[in-house]
């Protein structure tokens, strides 16, 4: 230490004795050879000693020493540093900024220059994040990075998304770990996209190993905007308003067509058609129930941010308001959010910086029932008969005389839905950074993520009868007793983290950085709730648990709670030699309360190597940057329920005794314990290349990876003889491998600049083991198609669709007789299913894999054009080769409406070979799970197109503003797809094993938006 101080003194002393002199030169652009006007030239160690180039690109600057380093910088050009030496004239050619290699990448417990990163890491910039109006930040990840697939689990505002980094890595939980400013968080609905500076996605275990047992499915690192030291204060407003509307309707029967089909069904069943349908023509088109439930819904966002900084402190304060209504349900599906954030840093001493990142969110989400085939407004609208009007003559809601139990009036249902989730959440941290020397620092961070959420549900009384006393409405259109439900939830996570960093370059060529850290994390969940019935008032404003007539008989209450802890140590060593070779090694060990004492700690290493080939003394021609990198790493996935290794005695297995029917508690272990429970382990190998051509005009990044999940948690069924549920065991394994490619081309012709970029990902997924003796996992129950429709088995991709194979329509009795036995009442016009095992009977053994919900490719491309003050951004996103299982039509209900494809039904020999005859009872079970319901789910979507206009510099200067931009944009303007349902972008609402099943999917909206961005 003493020597360091001495060295500093010596260095300082040399300045004292040096001689001032002048350096001149010219700065030109590599693009056109012309001089650059206004480029900054300064002395590195003394930024105040600087100048700018004149109209021809010349500069003149006084320097004090041969050791001085001149920094040349200009917007859009790569900053360069030149040591003065004994030169008096320095002429420099500047190249456009090659963003890929120079951008600073957040890599987890640190940052690194892109060119020095060995692992597969994608970065999404704040412009990209806010280009489309996103409610949840996960949406902003879609299409922005190769290897990252994002699908909406629903189009309703605020619903979750499936985010898969390099495919699903687990049978249970495959969502990545989200880390916001160093704080691991669950779910991103609390975060305002406008507050985000950048997002880094650690795709590769070589990078994510630093997150150990929680990084198996990749890590999304989100950094919020902070202020800069010594920067003038700035106020930015960013806001938009837009209208969303449905972009597609399904083609259903109108009233006349419905009556025709119904009549035919009755006749085919040997029954007399309904008298009121005798003359279908008089029924006209009837009710369009889709029009009745869809609406145009507003979306709006307002954000204001103030930031600035002095010598010792900087800050950013922001506030945001976001509101989005649903295109189904309107304000009953509204998402409302207020956010406030303060990020600030203070230099307390020259060796101590403290700071805070705190965000507060208040959000409210109202939700209507969705994504199931039984009793949601969307399914009801698709299936209720078109002869029923929405309203009776007196303006009250009408009921259908024909629809069955599940299919009630959907508009009434929406009206009667009161289900609101209100959440207050604080995610914040305070940190201190101690700079012991210029090489060694310690950063200590304490963070809290606390959520307080309440769900209020009210089920009002109603009766759609024409005469309420007669109760002529079917029972599902009457609710005699109202119900109120209240649930309270508290999640808290406390984390204390210390990272010690050491950075040093030896002999100019050996660059060493070491990070050592530890984390203590504790999370607690407590929940309680209650319900009550028979409230005197039917007004939702009076819906309180205590507000009831018979409190004791009908009240319910519950309490739940869980806690988990994690103790981790980690280290990273990064060694670079001569700017050419970079070696990174990571080791993390995690101890988790989720596992028994013998299996508590896991070890997660990774190694990676990078070679900057373009730094060698070779002429690579047009290739101005080339880096080859490879890595291997191991991660864990601990996303399993708590207490899995305990034999938990479950209460609530109750029975009622006594004349007064008193409920009496019963307790038994419902699940066999697995004391050997362990993490899922993911090992990933990655090889990649980063390349730039023509000084960054073209950038290419490509990766190939193999990701093996071992010890995957699965509960292979145990014999029922055991009498309790099978525990999760570490028995299964799976492999994902894939290729990712991202290419960008950028150029500038005069005032016109543009870039075109795209990325494409191909991932193959295969289950390689499910444990010995294990049955394939089935999931995705579609009751009225006969059970589970997905199937996961060794050698197949996750959640393949499974069912019968259709083979046309029986045209006549001979064909029925000649074919394998299907059902006693199989008749001409019914579907012929293939007898795959040739045993002469069509039964469950004739089912096979009939589709794959996983896409062959997912891709996206963007183009950004800029001409003078105008900019145009276009963003396409798509997937190819995936299938969707369409379960949105209730073929089991004889009187429900149908897609109008039924008009091409079989009515006699030769009339159709694809659409079966109509029938009341479907005796051949034509609606059994089969390839009839499997459709191509490929789509290409114009996710966003945006046209912007920025006020000219001169005008803005006069108005004393820094920036003012207006824009109009549209989302989901076009979707190209063959899929017949509302929306082809269907996520994994039912979990990893039941993706791609359309149960009346809440579609995403098309929106038109106008916005403005103002900075002054």
């Amino acid at each position, binding site marked *: 230490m003493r020597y360091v101080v001495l060295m500093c003194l010596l260095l300082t002393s040399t300045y004292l004795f040096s001689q001032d002199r002048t350096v001149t030169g010219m700065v030109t652009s590599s693009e056109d050879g012309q001089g650059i006007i206004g480029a900054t030239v300064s002395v590195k160690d003394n930024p105040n000693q600087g100048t700018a180039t004149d109209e021809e690109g010349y500069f003149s600057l006084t320097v004090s020493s041969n050791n001085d380093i001149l920094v040349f910088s200009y917007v859009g050009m790569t900053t360069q540093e030149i040591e003065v030496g004994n030169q008096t004239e320095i002429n420099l050619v500047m190249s456009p900024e090659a963003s890929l290699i120079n951008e600073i990448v957040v890599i987890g417990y640190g940052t690194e220059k892109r060119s020095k990163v060995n692992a597969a890491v994608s970065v999404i910039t704040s412009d990209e994040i806010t280009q489309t109006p996103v409610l949840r930040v996960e949406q902003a990840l879609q299409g922005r990075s190769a290897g990252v697939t994002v699908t909406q689990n629903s189009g309703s505002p605020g619903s979750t998304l499936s985010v898969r980094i390099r495919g699903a890595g687990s049978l249970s939980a495959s969502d990545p770990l989200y880390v916001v400013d160093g704080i691991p968080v669950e779910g991103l609905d609390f975060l305002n996209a406008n507050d985000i500076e950048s997002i880094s996605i650690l795709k590769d275990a070589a990078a994510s190993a630093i997150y150990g047992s929680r990084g198996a499915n990749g890590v999304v690192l989100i950094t919020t905007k902070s202020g800069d030291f010594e920067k003038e204060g700035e106020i930015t407003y960013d806001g938009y308003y837009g209208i969303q509307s449905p972009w597609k309707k399904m083609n259903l029967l109108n009233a006349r067509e419905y009556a025709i089909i119904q009549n035919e069904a009755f006749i085919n069943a040997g029954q007399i058609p309904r008298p009121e349908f005798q003359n279908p023509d008089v029924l006209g088109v009837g009710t369009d129930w889709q029009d009745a439930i869809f609406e145009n819904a507003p979306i709006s966002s307002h954000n204001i941010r103030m930031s600035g900084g002095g010598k010792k402190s900087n800050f950013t304060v922001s506030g945001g308001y976001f509101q989005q209504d649903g295109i189904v349900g309107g304000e009953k599906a509204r998402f409302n959010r207020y956010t406030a954030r303060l990020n600030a840093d203070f230099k307390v001493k020259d060796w101590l910086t403290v700071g805070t990142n705190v965000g507060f969110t208040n959000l409210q989400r109202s939700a209507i029932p969705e994504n199931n085939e039984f009793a949601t407004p969307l399914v009801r609208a698709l299936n209720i008969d078109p002869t029923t009007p929405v309203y009776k003559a007196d303006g009250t809601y009408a009921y259908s005389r024909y629809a069955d139990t599940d299919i009630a009036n959907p508009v009434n249902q929406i009206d009667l839905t009161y289900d609101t989730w209100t959440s207050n959440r604080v995610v914040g941290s305070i940190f201190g950074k101690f700079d012991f020397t210029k090489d060694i620092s310690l950063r200590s961070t304490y963070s809290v993520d606390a959520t307080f959420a309440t769900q209020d549900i009210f089920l009002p009384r109603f009766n759609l009868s024409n005469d309420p006393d007669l109760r002529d409405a079917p029972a599902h259109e009457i609710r005699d007793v109202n119900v109120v439900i209240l649930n309270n939830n508290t999640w808290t996570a406390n984390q204390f983290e210390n990272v010690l960093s050491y950075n040093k370059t030896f002999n100019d060529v050996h660059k060493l950085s070491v990070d050592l850290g530890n984390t203590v994390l504790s999370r607690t969940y407590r929940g309680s709730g209650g*319900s009550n019935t*028979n409230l005197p008032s039917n007004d939702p404003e009076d819906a309180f648990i205590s507000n009831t007539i018979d409190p004791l008989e009908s009240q319910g209450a519950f309490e739940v709670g869980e806690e988990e802890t994690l103790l981790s140590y980690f280290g990273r060593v990064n060694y670079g030699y001569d700017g050419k070779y970079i070696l990174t090694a990571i080791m993390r060990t995690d101890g988790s309360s989720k596992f028994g004492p013998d299996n508590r700690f896991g070890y997660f290493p990774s190694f990676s190597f990078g070679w900057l080939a373009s730094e060698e003394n070779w002429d690579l021609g047009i290739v101005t940057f080339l880096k080859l990198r490879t890595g291997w790493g191991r991660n864990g996935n601990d996303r399993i329920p708590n207490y899995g290794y305990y034999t*938990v*005695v479950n209460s609530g297995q109750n029975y009622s005794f*006594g004349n007064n029917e008193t409920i009496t508690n019963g307790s038994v272990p419902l699940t066999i314990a697995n004391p050997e429970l362990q993490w899922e382990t993911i090992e990933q190998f990655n090889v990649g290349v980063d390349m730039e051509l023509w000084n960054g005009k073209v950038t290419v990044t490509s990766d190939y990876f193999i990701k093996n999940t071992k010890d995957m948690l699965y509960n292979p069924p145990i014999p029922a003889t055991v*009498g309790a549920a099978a525990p999760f065991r570490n028995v299964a394994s799976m492999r994902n491998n894939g290729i990712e490619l991202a290419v960008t081309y950028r150029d500038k012709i005069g005032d016109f600049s543009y870039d075109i970029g795209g990325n494409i990902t191909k991932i193959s997924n295969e289950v390689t083991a499910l444990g010995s003796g294990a049955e394939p996992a089935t999931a995705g129950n579609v009751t009225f198609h006969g059970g589970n429709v997905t199937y996961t088995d060794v050698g197949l991709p996750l959640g393949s669709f499974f069912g019968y194979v259709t083979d046309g329509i029986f045209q006549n009795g001979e064909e029925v007789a000649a074919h394998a036995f299907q059902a006693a009442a199989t008749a001409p016009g019914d579907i012929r299913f293939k007898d795959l095992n040739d045993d002469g009977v069509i*039964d*469950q053994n004739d089912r096979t894999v009939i589709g794959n919900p996983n896409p062959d490719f997912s891709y996206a491309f963007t183009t950004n054009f800029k001409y003078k003050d105008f900019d145009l951004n276009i963003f396409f996103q798509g997937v190819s080769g995936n299938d969707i299982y369409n379960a949105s039509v209730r073929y089991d209900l004889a009187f429900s409406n149908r897609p109008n494809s039924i008009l091409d039904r079989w009515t006699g020999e030769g009339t159709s070979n694809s659409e079966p005859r109509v029938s009341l009872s479907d005796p051949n079970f034509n609606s059994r799970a089969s390839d009839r319901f499997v459709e191509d789910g490929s789509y290409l979507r114009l996710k966003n197109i945006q046209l912007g206009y920025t006020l000219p510099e001169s005008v803005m200067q006069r108005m004393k503003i820094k920036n003012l931009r207006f824009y109009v944009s549209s989302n989901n303007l076009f979707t190209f797809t063959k899929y017949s349902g509302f929306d082809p972008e269907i996520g994994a609402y039912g979990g990893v094993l039941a993706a791609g099943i359309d149960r009346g999917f809440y579609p995403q909206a098309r929106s038109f938006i106008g916005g403005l961005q103002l900075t002054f």
Partner: protein
Amino acid sequence: MKKKLNIILLTSMFFLMGCGDDFLDKSPIIGDTSENFYQSEEDARAAVNAAYASLQYELTPAGHFRWFWGDVMSDDSQKGGSGDNDAFGLLLLETFQGQANDEHIASEWTASFEGIYRANVVLENIPNIDMDETIKSQVLGEARFIRSYFFFNLVTMFGDVPKADHVLAPSEYSMPRSPASEIWDIIIDDLTQAIDVLPLRSELSSNEIGRITKGAARGLLTKAYLWNRNYLMAEQTANDIIISGEYMLADDYASIFTTAGENGPGSVFEVQYMNASGGNWGYNAQNEGTFTNVFQRARGQFNGYGFNLPTQDLVDEFFAENPNVEDPRLSATLFRVGDEMGDRGVFTKEATGGFPHDYYPKKYFDNQSETAPFGDPNPNGGSNDRVIRYADVLLMHAEAAYHNNNEGPARTSLNLVRERARGGNASILPDVTASGQALLDAIYHERRVELAMEGHRFFDLVRTGRAATVLGPLGYQDGVHNLFPIPESQILVTNGAITQNPGY
């Protein structure tokens, strides 16, 4: 500088050391683990109540309706539902084309073994608890009854089954099937032991109604003896119930199936259900209600699922003694077109959603006013499942006595049932005076009409060897359909250690 570094490092080390070993030891906040349970009388009660709870489970993936097997599989009723495809597997089963991968079969198997497991947990953990010995032996007796009840379900449906008479260790998971005779041995042994310790019904306090009694154990034991054609013991055990004086036939037959008739004077064993909030469609849920009510109600205006539709053949049985006189029990058994379906309206085919069915079951019909006034009413039916009624005991007594050549006592028991059914109308249902085969036929007829739609018929036919004659025209074959297929999933998951029944 160095000092400062040390201070900071030490400080952070201090924070780290704050986390001792117990930092990672987290047991459940709410709820118990096996280490701290089974220690008090309360725990013993809770453990056996959980075994009781398994009696209530219905639907898949683990549950059972007795009427699926006893009624639908027989000539008394048909599956029903919204159409053939509504529980299609049941249609295959009732037309004797049942498949081994049928989910309802698997559910029955799973639910039965779950009940057995829970009873085994009681039998293994409760003896060690320091508690009132009388209560302890009662709890153990209840567990023995529940275990034998589920073994009874299994052995009568599947024949040979794994003898899981203790909580299985992992090495025993793939336990193969044991001969049915060994299963019957457990049943008879358990019930015999249970009879010794269980209270008489009259010894139960009013808040204990629903707990298993000596009479219930004797009733099930009588049935077990009948299955084993041990008519001497069957008659004796049934007689024990009769002479106990604990039971009598309710005066009004129809009243038995009303809410007021639950746990009535003739109730020997009933599974208790009630309208309770919290019921849902999941298995192992905190579900005190039954789905039977909604499943058996007509569709359409009656808002049921329309299952278990009585056949014309069953209706005809009520006219079998005299084509011109209707057995009054018919109107308590099913609804006919034009009948008032309680407070839910008049039965017209239009009102049932246009279905062509002529009859709907009535014994488990609940009025609109009786449905759960909260949550989803579908799983919250309140009707108790009348598993063993005194009339059943009397008819079993008659049947056993007949085989023991005690025709006098046989006729006495039979005529007690008929007398009640007569409802004071001396012109109908005269006392049976027949003997020999005619007496046996009269007992069989009486069982069919007295116990119609209560889940007995199919098993009565198999037990008495009449199934091939009666159900043969429907496709039944002896040697195959007297047993149900072993769930295919269980054969697979045990790698074939569990074998299939012949003919499947």
